[in-house]
């Protein structure tokens, strides 16, 4: 059995003149929670649909759980998926909707109660699906994906449309599911959510990969920034010029000046140099702080560079 649960080479999907996925090479190691990151329209959903046999690639190759993409019936029984909004029959109860799935996939019916318990819907299974809140619908979608005791769980934008409470619940559910050891591939454009649960990241932009690796690798790749504030806010624009004269990038954001620290090896020396230059221009600094880079910062810099 391979250590890579998902592996694609040059995966491409074109719709007429539009290229949705453009020669994508990605890997997902076994046992990770992999975040699939990209803006809306970056090609995430199309890629996931190709992996699930719903959309045929225009070119390229891929394997899922060691099986070729052209043989979805050999690997899909071991894959659970929630693609975009959960899709169920509104007139059927949650339980009956899941029974449609267990019958189709020859999955023991006892799994219905088990997965409802995992997602916190015990006691609500008999209610009509149409009476569920959006958060409950999403949770039923996860329950459906877990029915077949999958080795790989594919979730496409599972927090879409949820309120902050629902997002927090979904994040906890995801963490709970990941703790069982199965591999999770979750796509989202809400980077803050992914940052907290993912240990492997694949970033895409315009159908192309811009980063792949561990979350730690990405954040260690110099996305920290220096935040400066002056005693007199009228000095902020002059401070930007002073910093730029030191050969660094600087940008005013409200009452602060932000200076990316990417590529700066001697941060202390760099800070001292800026402080001296500011003093030389009679600018009094009241705040000099190093802010840790976020996934969002790193994504923005990678997409900007792509």
């Amino acid at each position: 059995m391979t250590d890579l649960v998902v592996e694609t080479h040059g995966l491409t999907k074109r719709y007429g003149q539009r290229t949705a996925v453009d020669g994508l090479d990605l890997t997902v190691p076994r046992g990770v929670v992999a975040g699939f990151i990209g803006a809306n329209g970056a090609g995430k959903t199309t890629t996931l649909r190709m992996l699930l046999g719903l959309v045929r690639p225009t070119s390229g190759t891929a394997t899922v759980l060691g099986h070729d993409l052209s043989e979805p019936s050999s690997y899909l029984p071991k894959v659970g998926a929630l693609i975009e909004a959960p899709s169920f029959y509104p007139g059927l109860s949650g339980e009956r909707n899941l029974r449609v799935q267990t019958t189709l996939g020859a999955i023991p019916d006892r799994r219905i109660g088990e997965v409802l318990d995992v997602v916190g819907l015990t006691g609500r299974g008999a209610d009509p699906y149409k009476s569920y809140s959006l958060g409950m619908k999403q949770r039923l979608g996860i329950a459906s994906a877990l029915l077949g005791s999958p080795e790989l769980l594919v979730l496409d934008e599972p927090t879409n449309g949820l309120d902050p409470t629902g997002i927090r619940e979904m994040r906890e559910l995801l963490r709970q599911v990941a703790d069982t050891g199965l591999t999770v591939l979750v796509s989202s454009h809400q980077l803050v959510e992914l940052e907290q649960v993912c240990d492997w990241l694949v970033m895409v932009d315009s159908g192309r990969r811009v980063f792949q690796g561990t979350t730690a690798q990405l954040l260690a790749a110099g996305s920290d920034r220096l935040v400066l504030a002056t005693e007199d806010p009228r000095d902020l624009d002059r401070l930007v010029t002073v910093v730029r004269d030191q050969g660094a990038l600087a940008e005013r954001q409200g009452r602060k000046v932000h200076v990316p620290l990417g590529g700066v090896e001697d941060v202390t020396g760099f800070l001292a140099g800026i402080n001296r230059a500011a003093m030389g221009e009679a600018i009094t600094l009241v705040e000099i702080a190093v802010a840790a880079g976020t996934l969002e910062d790193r994504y923005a810099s990678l997409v900007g560079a792509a």
Partner: protein
Amino acid sequence: MNAFRSELVKLGRRTTLLAAGAVLPFLALLATTLVVLNATTTPTIGAGDGFEPSLAMLGTTGGLTAGFRASTGFLGILVFTLFLTSFSSEFSQGTLRTLLVREPRRVRLLVGKLSAVLLLVAASLLLAEVLSIGLSAVLASSRDVPLSSWWTADGLQQAGGDYLNALLASAFFGATGAAVAMLTRSTVVGLAIGLAWLMPLEHIVQNAWPDAEKWFPGLLFDVVARGGSTLVSYQYGLTAGVVGAAALLVAGATSFVRRDVSG
């Protein structure tokens, strides 16, 4: 087999059974009431069947299912709509992608779904015929129609034949509805095209060109349901019906198997 059983789980819902399964029996009872109560003592031209048979005809072996046969005129639209909505709603609700992740062998999914919906129609038709026969017996007795030839082997054979014809026509209309759904992937568009074609268009053309009954699918399937017509033999209708329904189904199935599921 799993796809078939899975579809039955969906169809087994009480409201679905009532909505889809009770319409045909209701129409059969209505048609039976009209047929028996409208039966005339004096035979007129064209009064051998339909909604105004003669009382003498009702007393023959064919009288047993005269009401049921008359109700099959509504069969096409109902079965077409049932199959079309059953398939197109999978696209519009997005449930198809969930099903295909669970069963990626699309032909199996298609066959299972078609078989399950057809089973529902078959059961509904059977109930319709049994109820129609029961009501016919009660109403015919009140009109002094002799029933002795009804309960003979010939009478029951006629009833079996009428059921089989209705079922065959249902399969043809069902295949057409499913094919239109798979090609259009839309309930609204599918219904607009299908109903416009089957209801006004075919009949308008038929009024101007009677031979349309030999060529147009809806008219041909109706011929099978009626066991033949004055213009088209049953054998011709059956053969052409099989060919037409198969062609439509192959076109729909090809689209279903090959096209991306993006919605």
